[in-house]
């Protein structure tokens, strides 16, 4: 019964608040009435009929009123009521749309009310959350000019204007506050820091927790930060903000807009499936963090392509206390994306348009020009008969003469500039929202076209969403529909290195402007060299794309004040497609295979792939919060979630296109003769139960316990379920008596946590022993099946133990805040493939093989250097530093054996797995430099002797191919309406293997005849006995992996810089009823200083970015 009463009360409150809303925005308050001998009752009836006003009065009171003749034309209700009631003992009160008519208690009051409003004043004090008065805050009646600024003590006095209803308090860097004016004489307000907007609540994607008592390590990225530090895509943007967001810079792929980055949080805690695979570059994304958007898992690709204007905040959950609620998926950290929810109110329109430019950065290339290259070739003897290349002296000399003639005539082609461009991209964004408190809606649409620095390389995204929320009593229904369409196109110019390798003495075009299809090889009778520009002129096609449709439906039921339930259902459907077309004229069909009668018809190829995935996610959350006697605060949460996803992918190839044929599968002659159609399929399912308990004592001490049981189809039949848990404790020191009232420290918190989580990046059927049917083979006229691999029923979950200790400090009125977290993360039962003796019939199986440890810390320091509100000058500087050390702490004997075998193999640079070393260590043979007498490199062999033969098994540890420290410095300077944001990034403590030195400097003599080279070849290589050089002499012996090329990797870069101008006053603004107008100039990757001189962007160049945008809000 008690519940019922409470529910009734809530309902009433809810209704009242709803109606009050209507009054502010939609109430009609003028009426036209013509009546004779009308009683007040009749008037009330007439007004009620014309409007939403309802009247509260006692019959006895109004019965005494005399009847009057009335004639009002569009008169205000107050005038009408005054006319009736002025001479009576009654007065009225309008509370929203309820009009109360009652006996007047004090004559004065009535008198006062009848007096002109201009004389009325409101005063009060404006304070911040720490109780300090705010100086210079603006206090203004909404929609009027009547306002004042607060004085040094935060005091204000404002005259109430005629139509003064809502008082707006605002201050730079703080959240604005609106207070309804209903005749109060004093209004005191507390303004919250802007940054606190999302800070008091931590959205974990499952439970919403109070920051005050949260023991997890979490960092938040706000929508404003995303806007301020924008990079090529959202993932890059996040890296600009938080260095803990570790993106592996791929020197090979540069700024290709279609590359999905490798991403880790707090180090790598999984091993790739085998040592060999790892080195073959088959890096699976075993360390990618889990990404959750509005409660449901999304892919990294989706995050990268998502419309960043639609994001309210991103929480990065790092330690076990934060991620244990994700159980088997939490070990790599969790990125929680919270999208913007529609705000109620009258229609709000937000429009943005922008332009971005990608400017190729070729500054790391230092290639030889035509005459230098030719003379070098001559000098090393490529044009003399003694080389292995040729037997005919005439040919050699002739080709040299021809080239020399060209060079003398001024041929010096800058090949690098042919495939690149200034890529001009576009961004458009539209957001509409509005509605009442009961029914809210929001719609967004955005179009982003990313044009890469290589010609024809694009990534286009269209995102649209529609959200509706409906509140009925204490239940909120919400539905969110999203669609994302993506298309990525690769440049038809192919890889950039083809151009970097091209000889500058070749002329791409003839004198008449036609394209040179190919060039003479090194010497006359050598094979022809293909002009890389030729293939680019054809109508080839290489694109991938997907369409994703996602619908999330949720019901939130506030059963009691303390008890809430939320149920969600999400369905996501994704279609992917990839198209790769090579026309018949393409150079890849110039082989002898295609020169036969049958082969002629096979020229031209179209590879088509299509895939589909469908996933369902459902979860129910129950949460209970209770405060006992103001001393004990309890939170309990329960979650049940269930997920299923099914994928398939088909690929096939067709061939035989006529010359000039359009890229259309229907134009093909036949299916590919060699390649069969292929496909893949997978289904995975998961269920999880999560419980969370949080207890806070007097807001000072708190403890957090999470427990999750996960069941997954991806693990062995013997262990389908696994438990995960975490325990955290915290202490709000600033709430202790000895710090209360302290002016210096206003926030000081200590917390520690420990927990176990898992990761789930495996192929679903790994644990099963399965048979596969032969599709391409048969016996006699019968089909067959074979056992694919040895399953492993005993496969265990890979478990990550994580310990975290952290502190947060805010001093001087939060002008300076700092955080520090130290962690140790240990992953045991690492999964990897284990070799088997062949007598079992198989080469390997998947097993739990070892243990990896990551130790590190994350620190941040933020402070206001200026916070001069009077002049409107704010300068905030923040720095973040992350350190991580990865170490393999234990490996099984089998993996050790595999590693030894791989070490002895005749391979160059390789990553080897050894206990005590990082997963990313570089192993190379120790170099003693170049012998000045011979120009050959000297090595230290296995036994410590000097030798000039390179022995793979003499490889030693040379460093870690990953920086130990990474950090950034962000600065935000605001002056008046201008805001300047800068983000610098740096890293050090790691090593890098300088591949440029091998492929472009210490090249073999023969390679000089095939590729252009770095300038250092020209003057820094050994040439005669006595030369002391870094680079060895010219020979045809290739340089092998040596410690000489392992260099310390230190980088400092300006990641992003943006300038914003915000306009919210002025005649223009008023004329078009604009709320605000923002102009923005945004640049990223502006400069890059590195301790390693190497070519950056091998197959795709790096690019600098610049963009301008305009945002309008109505």
């Amino acid at each position: 019964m008690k519940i019922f009463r409470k529910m009734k009360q809530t309902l009433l409150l809810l209704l009242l608040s709803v109606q009050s809303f209507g009054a502010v925005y939609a109430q009609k308050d003028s009426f036209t009435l013509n009546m004779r001998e009308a009683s007040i009752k009749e008037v009330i009836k007439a007004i009620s009929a014309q409007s939403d006003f309802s009247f509260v009065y006692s019959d006895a009171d109004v019965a005494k009123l005399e009847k009057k003749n009335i004639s009002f034309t569009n008169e205000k209700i107050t005038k009408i009521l005054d006319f009736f009631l002025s001479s009576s003992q009654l007065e009225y009160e309008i509370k929203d749309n309820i009009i109360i008519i009652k006996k007047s208690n004090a004559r004065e009051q009535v008198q006062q009310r009848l007096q002109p409003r201009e004389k009325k004043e409101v005063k009060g004090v404006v304070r911040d959350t720490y109780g300090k008065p705010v100086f210079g805050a603006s206090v203004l009646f909404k929609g009027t000019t009547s306002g004042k600024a607060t004085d040094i003590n935060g005091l204000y006095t404002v005259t109430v204007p005629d139509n003064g209803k809502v008082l707006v308090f605002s201050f730079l860097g703080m959240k604005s506050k609106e207070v309804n004016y209903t005749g109060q004489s004093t209004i005191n307000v507390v303004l919250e820091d802007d940054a606190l907007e999302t800070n008091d609540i931590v959205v974990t994607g499952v439970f919403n927790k109070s920051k005050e008592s949260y023991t997890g390590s979490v960092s938040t990225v706000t929508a404003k930060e995303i806007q301020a530090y924008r990079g090529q895509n959202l993932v890059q943007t996040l890296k600009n903000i938080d260095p803990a967001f570790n993106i592996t810079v791929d020197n090979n792929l540069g700024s290709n807009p279609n590359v999905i980055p490798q991403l880790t949080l707090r180090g790598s805690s999984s091993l790739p499936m085998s040592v060999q695979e790892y080195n073959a570059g088959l890096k699976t994304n075993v360390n990618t963090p889990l990404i959750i958007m509005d409660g449901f898992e999304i892919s990294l690709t989706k995050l990268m392509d998502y419309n960043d204007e639609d994001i309210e905040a991103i929480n990065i959950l790092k330690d076990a206390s934060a991620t244990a609620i994700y159980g088997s998926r939490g070990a790599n950290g969790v990125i929680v994306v919270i999208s913007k929810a529609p705000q109620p109110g009258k229609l709000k329109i937000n429009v943005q348009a922008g332009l971005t430019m990608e400017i190729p950065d070729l500054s790391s290339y230092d290639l030889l020009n035509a005459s230098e290259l030719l003379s070098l070739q001559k000098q090393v003897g490529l044009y003399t008969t003694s080389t292995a290349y040729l037997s005919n002296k005439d040919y050699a000399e002739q080709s040299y003469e021809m080239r020399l003639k060209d060079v003398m005539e001024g041929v010096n082609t800058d090949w690098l500039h042919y495939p690149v461009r200034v890529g001009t991209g576009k961004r458009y964004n539209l957001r509409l929202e509005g509605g009442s408190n009961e029914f809210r809606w929001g719609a967004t649409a955005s179009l982003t076209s990313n044009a890469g620095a290589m010609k024809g390389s694009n990534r286009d995204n269209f995102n649209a969403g529609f959200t509706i929320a409906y509140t009925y009593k204490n239940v909120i229904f919400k539905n969110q529909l999203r669609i994302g369409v993506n298309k990525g196109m690769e440049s038809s110019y192919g890889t950039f290195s083809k151009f970097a390798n091209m000889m500058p003495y070749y002329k791409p075009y003839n004198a008449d402007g036609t394209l040179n299809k190919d060039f003479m090889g090194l010497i006359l009778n050598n094979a022809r060299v293909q002009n890389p520009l030729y293939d680019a002129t054809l109508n080839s096609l290489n694109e991938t794309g997907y369409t994703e449709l996602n619908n999330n439906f949720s019901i939130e039921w506030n059963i009691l004040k303390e008890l809430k339930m939320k149920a969600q259902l999400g369905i996501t459907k994704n279609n992917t497609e990839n198209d790769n077309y090579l026309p018949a004229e393409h150079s890849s069909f110039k082989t002898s295979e295609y020169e036969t009668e049958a082969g002629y018809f096979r020229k031209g190829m179209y590879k088509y792939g299509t895939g589909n995935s469908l996933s369902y996610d459902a979860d129910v959350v129950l949460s209970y919060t209770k405060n006992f006697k103001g001393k004990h605060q309890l939170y309990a949460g329960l979650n049940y979630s269930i997920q299923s996803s099914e994928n398939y992918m088909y690929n096939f190839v067709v061939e035989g296109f006529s010359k000039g044929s359009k890229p259309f599968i229907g134009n093909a002659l036949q299916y590919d003769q060699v390649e069969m159609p292929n496909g893949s399929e997978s289904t995975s399912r998961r269920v999880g139960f999560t419980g969370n308990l949080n207890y806070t004592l007097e807001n000072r001490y708190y403890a957090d316990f999470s427990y999750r049981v996960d069941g997954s189809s991806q693990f062995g039949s013997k262990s389908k379920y696994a438990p995960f848990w975490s325990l955290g404790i915290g202490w709000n020191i600033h709430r202790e008596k000895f710090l209360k009232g302290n002016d210096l420290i206003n926030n000081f918190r200590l917390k520690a946590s420990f927990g176990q989580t898992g990761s789930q990046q495996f192929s679903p059927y790994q644990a099963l022993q399965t048979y596969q049917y032969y599709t391409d083979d048969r016996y006699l006229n019968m089909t067959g099946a074979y056992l694919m691999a040895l399953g492993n029923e005993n496969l265990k979950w890979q478990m990550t133990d994580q310990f975290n200790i952290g502190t947060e400090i805010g001093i001087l009125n939060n002008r300076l805040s700092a955080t520090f977290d130290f962690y140790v993360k240990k992953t045991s039962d690492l999964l990897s493939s284990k070799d088997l003796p062949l007598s079992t019939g198989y080469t390997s199986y998947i097993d739990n093989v070892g243990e990896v440890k990551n130790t590190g810390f994350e620190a941040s320091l933020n402070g206001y250097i200026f916070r001069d509100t009077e002049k409107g000058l704010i300068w905030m500087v923040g720095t973040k530093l992350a350190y991580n050390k990865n170490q393999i702490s234990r490996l099984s004997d089998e993996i050790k054996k595999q590693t030894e075998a791989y070490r002895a193999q005749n391979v160059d640079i390789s990553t080897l797995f050894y206990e005590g070393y990082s997963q990313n260590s570089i192993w190379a043979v120790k170099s003693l430099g170049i012998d000045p007498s011979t120009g050959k490199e000297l090595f230290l062999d296995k036994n410590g002797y000097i030798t000039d033969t390179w022995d793979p098994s003499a490889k030693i540890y040379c460093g870690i191919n990953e920086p130990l420290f990474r950090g950034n410095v962000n600065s935000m300077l605001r002056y008046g309406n201008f805001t300047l944001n800068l983000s610098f990034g740096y890293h050090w403590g790691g090593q890098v293997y300088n591949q440029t030195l091998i492929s472009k400097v210490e090249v073999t003599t023969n390679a000089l005849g095939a590729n252009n080279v770095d300038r250092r070849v020209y003057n820094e290589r050994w040439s005669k006995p006595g030369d002391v050089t870094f680079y060895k002499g010219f020979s045809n012996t290739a340089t092998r992996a040596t410690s000489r090329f392992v260099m310390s990797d230190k980088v400092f870069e300006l990641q992003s810089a943006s300038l914003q101008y915000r306009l919210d006053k002025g005649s223009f603004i008023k004329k078009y009823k604009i709320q605000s107008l923002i102009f923005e100039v945004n640049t990223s990757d502006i400069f890059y200083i590195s301790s390693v001189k190497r070519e950056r962007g091998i197959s795709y160049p790096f690019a600098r970015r610049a963009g301008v945008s305009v945002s309008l809000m109505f």
Partner: protein
Amino acid sequence: MKRIFIYLFLIILPLISSCDKWLDVKPTTQETTDELFGSYAGYCNALNGCYIKLKNRDIYGEKLTMSNIESMAQLWRVDQNGRLQDYELKAFNYDGDNAKAAANSIYAGLYNVVAQANMIINSMDTYGSVIKDPVSKAIIEGEAYAIRAFCHFDALRLFGQVPNGATINVSLPYAETVSQISLPKYYNYNDFVAKVEADLNKAESILKDKDPIFKYTFDYLNIFNASQIDNTVLDDDFHGYRQSRFNYWAVKALQARFYMYIGNKEKAYTIAKSIIEAKGVDGNDLITLSGLNDINAGYLACPSECLMMLNVHNIMSYSPTVLAAGSAQIRESHLVITNEQLTKLFEGQQTASHNRFNILWNRTLMNPSGNIFPVLMKYNYNNTTSISTYLELTKRQVVPILRLSEMYLIVLETTNDLTEANTLWAKYQLSHNVLISGNTFATLDAVRAEVINEYRREFYGEGHMFYTYKRLKSPTMLWRTEPVTEANYIVKLPVSEFNPNN
């Protein structure tokens, strides 16, 4: 308050139950062991899988018949540039990277087939009851045992010690389980041989009387579903094509070969002779030497006398790249012989009408320099002329595994009766289109010496000669100038193996 919790619990409860089943996801393009062995058809597919694996080019499709094994017997002229593996194997350079790779793939191939067979054998207790028909069950189980014995036996012949007079002892794994936990055990020569023998006996006893060959002839079982024959059709297709499977008589022949190899001449003699003399259900000889008819018909691998052969439907897609027959020109990558070798091969034979000499060796193909090299035609057929499917499957796309000719040679080598030897030899030669009048051999030793030469002549490209030399521990090989050591007969086990021999 309480009531709400009860309601909530009731809502959640159905979600919780039956999770276990829901989490049991099975892939659609694959089947789990239980699913596959849950039906007779699954068993048939698993057994066919063994044969598909057997015909892989890594083992009997090429390496253990046409190429590697014959290079080790010094039979081929190997060009270093074209055939690295054969080159190193021919030189017995078992430590060479290429020889290692070849040995590795052969070893892996054999034991992978064993694993497939073991899956069938080991599932019989649990799932075998789904096969209702006793004949089908005997076929599946018996053939699986035969395949397991066959592969292990060849692992022994290749990687094991010499069977007679061994000074180097080698233990080998005999795999009877499919598991990453209980790894196959290693057995010394005697125990390993006992294991092979036991499996062969088991296969024999299972197939005895049940094998369809006790009810129909080999020919009938090859043509059973071809409409031209009486319109009679077998109840179950799976009972057909016995010649292309390890049938009862194939197991017997394998036993003869096995006893011959381990030096049990009496048993070898008895079994081989029983096969030669065996009668089929129609009262005629079970199987006869087919050289005369087959070779004239263009079935150069003598399929009709096979007690066991592999159907390799794609043989013409690769045999021309290995043995040159069927390609336009001889290249470095082809395995051929010289004219001198061919002459030496048929030394002392009446070559005028000898169909192997005249038809099996093509002497018209040239290399780019215009030199002619004899080319083995055994695995070549004119695939532009089409014939009925059953002939295509059982006569043309064939790699012989066990032929009646081998049984003749076993009897010839082991008999103590000179008359029997001479009679049998005459019969044998007739199938080569050579008419013998009178006695060829004066002594049994002369018979035995010629039999070794005949192994080389008859089974060129079928992988017999290396094992023949090995069982005799022959210190020489024809066309090898250096002596052959005992170690040369023992291919080293892949490095991935736990090797108790070191």
